[in-house]
């Protein structure tokens, strides 16, 4: 018997292929947490309003609570668990620890995935609402504190770790720049 309300999907999560049968109602967030056991992404609101569930989907940051798992079929997902691979922490993760970019840590997985996605967006030359002139003919937007704050605004932090998060992101970006 076929059940039209369920689907079998393939996901590549942090480099590991998974095949699972999901209720079509299941969000990517719940599939990651309840079915695959990756509880790094957090459910702060379940409505796209906090960013705690942010993951990278095919390299782009998305909120996994409004992504249906079935609609993510075939995607490559990276969660906070997968950022470092098996080895050393990313410079960004190290900067979070060193500069105290979190307190309770509940928003942290989302902040980190968001920052990784955001840095790639900036590298690709995307402007933001903090970019004074969006014209493609001028200089590319410089990633200063105001840019980082605007681009990271989809990640709420009630503990108020914002200033250290911004510092950690800026340091990491600067480090990347000098490296190449």
């Amino acid at each position, binding site marked *: 018997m076929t059940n039209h309300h369920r689907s079998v999907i393939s996901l590549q999560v942090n480099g590991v292929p998974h095949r699972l049968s999901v*209720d079509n109602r299941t969000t990517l967030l719940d599939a990651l*947490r309840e079915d695959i056991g990756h509880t790094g992404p957090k459910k702060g*609101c379940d409505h796209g309003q906090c960013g705690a569930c942010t993951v990278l989907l095919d390299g782009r940051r998305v909120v996994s609570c409004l992504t249906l798992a079935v609609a993510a079929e075939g995607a490559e997902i990276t969660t906070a668990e997968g950022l470092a691979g098996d080895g050393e922490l990313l410079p960004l993760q190290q900067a979070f620890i060193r500069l105290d970019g979190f307190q309770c*840590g509940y928003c942290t997985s989302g902040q980190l995935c968001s920052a990784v996605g955001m840095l790639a967006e900036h590298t690709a030359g995307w402007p933001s609402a903090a970019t004074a002139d969006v014209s493609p003919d001028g200089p590319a937007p410089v990633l200063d504190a105001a840019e980082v*704050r605007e681009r990271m605004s989809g990640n709420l932090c009630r*503990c108020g770790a914002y*200033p250290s998060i*911004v510092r950690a992101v800026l340091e990491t970006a600067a480090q990347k720049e000098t490296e190449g």
Partner: protein
Amino acid sequence: MKNAVGVAQPRIEGRAKVTGAARYAADVPIPGLAFGAVVLATVSLGRIRDIDVSAVQDMAGVLGVIDHRNAPRLNPKAGGFFGPDGQLQLLQDEVIPFAGRPVALVVAETLEQAQAAAEALPVTYDEEPHDTGFTADHPASRPAVAIFDEPVNVGDVEAELAASSVVVEEQYCTPEEHCSAMEPHSATAWWEGERLEAIDSNQGPFSIAVTLATLFSLSPDLVHVRTEHVGGGFGSKGLCGPQLILAAMAALLFGRPVRVTLTRAQVFLATAMRPAINQLIRIGADADGRLRAIHHEAAFEISPLVEYLEGCTELTKTLYAARSIRTRLSAVPLDILPPYSMRGPGATPGSFALESAMDELAERLGMDPLELRLRNEPVAGPVSGLPFSSRNLVACLREGARRFSWDTRDHRPRMRREGALLVGTGLAATSFSAGAFPSSATITAETDGTFTVAIGATDLGTGARTALTAIAADALAVGTERIRLRISDSGLGPAWGAGGSRGTTSWVWAITEAAEKLRGQECRGTVTVDTTRSLGELSSRERHSFSAVFAEVTVDPVTGEVRVRRLLGMFAVGRVVNPLMARSQVIGGMIGGLSMALHEEGIRDPVSGRHVNADFAGYHIAAHADVPDIEADFVPDYEPGIPMGVKGAGEIGNVGTAAAIANAVWHATGVRQRSLPIRLDRVLE
């Protein structure tokens, strides 16, 4: 041996938190888990007419529904700090005392199934006329219970006001505000024979286990509550939450582990909030700024279900030397979610009123607001007459003023413009009471040379895990690598929870006392201490943390948008255990204050009485873009009465920031903001 206390150290659990490995209550895998979804009442007052369980009983995966007809009976005596608590009496009868009261729990095999059935569950009500409209002169207003922040009346306020050359008399309003920790409340409960096991997000597993035991009429040693990582609390997780009570009921009825996680809307509607508050301040001073009188009254809303006290006037008894001081608190019972302590309870709204009024006084005196505060520095408790154990407010004010270049400020309003923007600065002085509550701790000297330090503390993001490890290391005179700290478990003995800025002080006291005892027996074996006795011997003193907050804002008069461009806080919080984390704590508090000043407002529908913005798209908390780089630092301070000289820094960061910002908005625009939040429609020209 180098001290660990005083050294900036990253968090012990840092790696777990940046790799997503840290497990919060809803993350812990449990075999055989069922999921409960909560259904909340949608009327503000009334009775349940019917809950049609048959409509969902046969839905896929549904195990059953618990409501007032089949719920286990709870002990009505259960309560907390404020006495018996009707908010805990869930599913006991058909009465609906406020919109948001849980009326049923639907339990199913999966989360999706439980949620779908909860949405589909038909509940009908017989509505009764409700009252959710708070005003200070409400006919039901009555004196607040005097558990603390009792009314005082020293000197002759009326005579002193009459003799004053300048008098400020104003009202200040703050709305319902929600704690809004990022982790929604979650609990998983199961029974192991007679024993109730639970994983729960809360601020104090021991006291919560005791409450839960009372509720279910169990012996306390048969209830075990764990709380490894907690995603923030800010007051809302100080209570035995509905998630835990309902999960325990469901585990009992269905004979398997049940997880109940509140939705974000349910966190708003069913956990805890700061009440709406209306404050009256009258201050009189001589022409030279010396205070003759402070009269401070606050009225706040409560629920008839449980007492509560918003101690707004506490800092009025501390901050300034006035010849006469009168305070009074009144409570207005309404059909609302029972209010509870939210970060910086009392002092945060209280300081908004007092420190705004002080700024108005400085304005009318034509005086520097900094000078006005310095001129009224008391030598002893203005009401108690007791000496201060340590008081470093002046140091905070002076050092903050130096860093902020306060001396270059033109104190007249609306004098600074940058393009289209108006620019202004403001300050506030604050205090937050310090102290400790009885706690126990156990230290075991292990054979491998390490020490297991067990205490019923929690780490909500305060850094307690890291701080207590440093404290234990210094108290035992060993390196931190030899300390194995165990916290977050009700089985570790009685301990005060993380709240009231009493967590660290209470736990430090217990750990140092235990360490001393262990060292007295050559660091061998196991010792357990309880600090009830030594705390009782603490001499009577005025004990407080102090701070000074400075803010610079820009205001766009065309749009009414206010942006905080600079924020500086100088703090005297006793000895600083870990400067890195302490700074994060106070900065986080200041951001909470900024958020309160500019954004936060629970809004009720005037007709239905329901909270209409119960989500993060409607109830705004500050986002990244609202928050500038914030400077926070500590002046030397030491609390002589408490071991290690600590005072606690969890809440004072929140205090004062809203007033500093409101004062800066006045300085920018010339218009006073006496109601929070400072919404753009209140500023727009």
